[in-house]
């Protein structure tokens, strides 16, 4: 039956995460935003110890197997990540974990590859997994990547440049992590030739050449990786080397996004909620009450704005929960994942911008975190599929069009 009550288990987890967010992340939020590229190592070590054992709080979910019965893994992940992002989205994003790279291995790797690459996240010092797709010449059009992978004896040889790689620096330079790199076996063969390759830390021929200076989520390192005759073992390829006609192989990699889009949406919602909660607090302190049910001609602009913020944020959250729930039920959620991602990116951009506006001169000051939340929020409208790309995906699905029919 239709139900909006989180399970006790998830609620308990949420409480723990909230405590972590409020007591450990918020106090260092401003510092790590100002000191871009430095890491809160103490905090990382603390969360790493927890994440190594029992359940990984930054589990990237994935479609449940119908045969196993319903799970709540994706719902849980969304709730947890909302809470951590409420704390600090930049710090959350830079926490040691298997990341998108790990998600790719989990989705497409063999049992052996999963052991080789993922077991490390349950032992030893903090580690990061990263994913490198975007290049200077292509972001949304990921099928146009130019990084090549050429077979040479027992190795693949990678050449190319990747930018905007989240946690790339931590993954390959500062920890015993890895990066999953999208490369093409044959540019003339289009999408079917694009594959994912795991490049372990310390592999010669891979260099982190720079870190971006960003508007927000500054604690998270956004790396440029250059591959020059970078040789990796043959069995670092995820999936099959077969170059299929059309888009089949490509679709498999893209399917990871059905799981990760709701998660990014959840993170955005956490930031939006931070701004909303703070605005509500300040309005209450200033004696401005939101009169639900008052007629339009009586409502002040601030009341109307605030109610819009609340409704849009909740709409984004319910769409996200739906997408996560579908994954947990083993249902195909490509449409719903793109719906929630495009809605959340837009809604949270608007909510956080409005919060700064409502809070006047103090909202503009770096003495308060609300201006930071606006800067942190914007990226969610962009990465993991821009709002426009996600709208395109929604459009194709509702119209029954292929990417050729609607571009």
């Amino acid at each position: 039956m239709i139900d909006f009550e989180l399970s006790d288990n998830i609620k308990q987890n949420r409480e723990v995460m909230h405590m972590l967010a409020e007591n450990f992340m918020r106090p260092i939020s401003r510092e790590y935003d100002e000191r871009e590229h430095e890491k809160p190592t103490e905090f990382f070590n603390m969360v790493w110890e927890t994440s190594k054992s029992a359940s990984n709080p930054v589990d990237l979910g994935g479609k449940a197997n119908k045969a196993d019965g319903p799970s709540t893994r994706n719902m849980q992940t969304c709730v947890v990540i909302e809470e951590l992002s409420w704390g600090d989205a930049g710090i959350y994003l830079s926490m040691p974990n298997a990341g998108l790279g790990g998600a790719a291995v989990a989705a497409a790797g063999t049992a052996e590859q999963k052991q080789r690459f993922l077991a490390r996240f349950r032992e030893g010092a903090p580690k990061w997994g990263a994913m490198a797709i975007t290049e200077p010449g292509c972001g949304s059009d990921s099928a146009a990547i130019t990084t090549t992978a050429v077979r040479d004896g027992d190795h693949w040889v990678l050449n190319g440049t990747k930018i905007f790689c989240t946690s790339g620096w931590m993954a390959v330079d500062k920890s015993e992590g890895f990066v999953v790199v999208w490369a093409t076996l044959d540019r003339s063969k289009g999408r079917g030739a694009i594959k994912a390759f795991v490049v372990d830390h310390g592999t010669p021929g891979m260099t982190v050449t720079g870190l971006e200076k960003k508007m927000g989520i500054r604690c998270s390192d956004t790396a440029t990786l250059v591959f020059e005759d970078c040789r990796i073992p043959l069995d670092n390829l995820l999936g099959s080397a077969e170059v299929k006609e059309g888009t089949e192989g490509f679709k498999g990699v893209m399917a990871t996004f059905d799981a990760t889009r709701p998660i990014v949406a959840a993170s955005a919602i956490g930031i939006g909620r931070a701004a909303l909660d703070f605005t509500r607090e300040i309005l209450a302190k200033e004696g401005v009450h939101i009169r639900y049910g008052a007629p339009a001609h009586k409502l002040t602009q601030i009341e109307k704005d605030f109610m819009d913020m609340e409704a849009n944020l909740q709409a984004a959250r319910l769409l996200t929960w739906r997408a996560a729930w579908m994954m947990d039920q083993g249902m195909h959620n490509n449409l719903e994942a793109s719906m929630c991602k495009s809605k959340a990116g837009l809604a949270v951009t608007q909510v956080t911008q409005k919060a700064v506006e409502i809070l006047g001169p103090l909202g503009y000051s770096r003495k308060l975190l609300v201006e930071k939340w606006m800067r942190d929020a914007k990226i969610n409208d962009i990465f993991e599929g821009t709002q426009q790309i996600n709208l395109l995906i929604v459009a194709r699905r509702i119209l029954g069009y292929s990417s050729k029919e609607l571009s």
Partner: protein
Amino acid sequence: MVSFQPTEDQQLIRDTVASFAQEQIRPVAHEADETGNIPSNVVQQAWELGVVQSLIPEAYGGAGDARSVITGALVAEELAWGDLSIALQILAPRLLVYPVVEMGTEEQKKQILPAFAGDKFHSGTAALMEPRFTFDTAELTTSARRDGNHWVINGSKCLVPLAAEAEAVLVYAAVGKPGHENVGAFIVPKGTPGMRVLGREQNMGIKAVETCEVAFEDCRVPASQRLGGDSGADFSRLLNYSRVGLAAMAVGVARAAFEYARDYAKDRKAFGVAIAQKQAIAFMLAQMAIEIDAARLLAWEAAWRLDRGEDGTREAVLAQQYASSACMKVTDDSIQVLGGHGYIREHPVEMWARNGRGFATFQGLVMV
């Protein structure tokens, strides 16, 4: 545990009503809007689905189904998807029946409910909105003054569906100072002196259903006719039921418009391709789809809270505002997708926009 899956029973009800909307309502909707007349056989067939009788307890002849605002929202969405005017007509008796079921005295239940548990459509309604620019549910200008063992009602009501034939009108009036807690609901039987139905209104939309202005001039009703007796009834809660119902109906109207625009856009060619293959159109359609789903989920959450006995005012208000806004945008964009053809009454999109505009204003026009 969080779930977005209606129960099997709910799904069955939803499917049944959806079929009815498709097969019986849609074919007559356009003509009904043009002529201002809803075929009585459609209303009677809808009655036979049990949308009013289902909630009446068995003791008064009804099916005795358990209350579920969520189920009500599912039904309301499907009927409104068929046609808003016809949906409002079909559901109008609930405006009287539901408050009596939930908050009526034993005497009131005996007096009112049995007539609505029969085989034939039986008309009932409620009067809430008032003909003012500054209408405020918490500051009604229709008042009820206690006089001995009677209440005396004075004021003006508008947008009262089926006022002329309704067996009784549930009239909302202020019994004290401003505030929802000081609103009383009074069962005023047809023909009561002092209640005058002033002709049929000419509305922007919902043209097929009869709505009337009703004037109250020293209209006296026994104190026993106050809903809930002297302790009154929970007006706030009734308002919330109607907010959720209206939100659900707004979703239905929006969905109708979106589907029509989508299908048109796939068919209509311009510049060598279907217009749906152009981003400007495709993005409008995608945004419509998202907003419809978002509005529905907000309405469901508000309904769920009401079903749990929570106050739910914040959620119900936000759901209605969001759905009403979304409906206006979606129906407006649907006209836009059809271009010049969207402006012509041969296509239903302009009607859906005229109907949809009402949701920003409507209060208390449906009970779920």
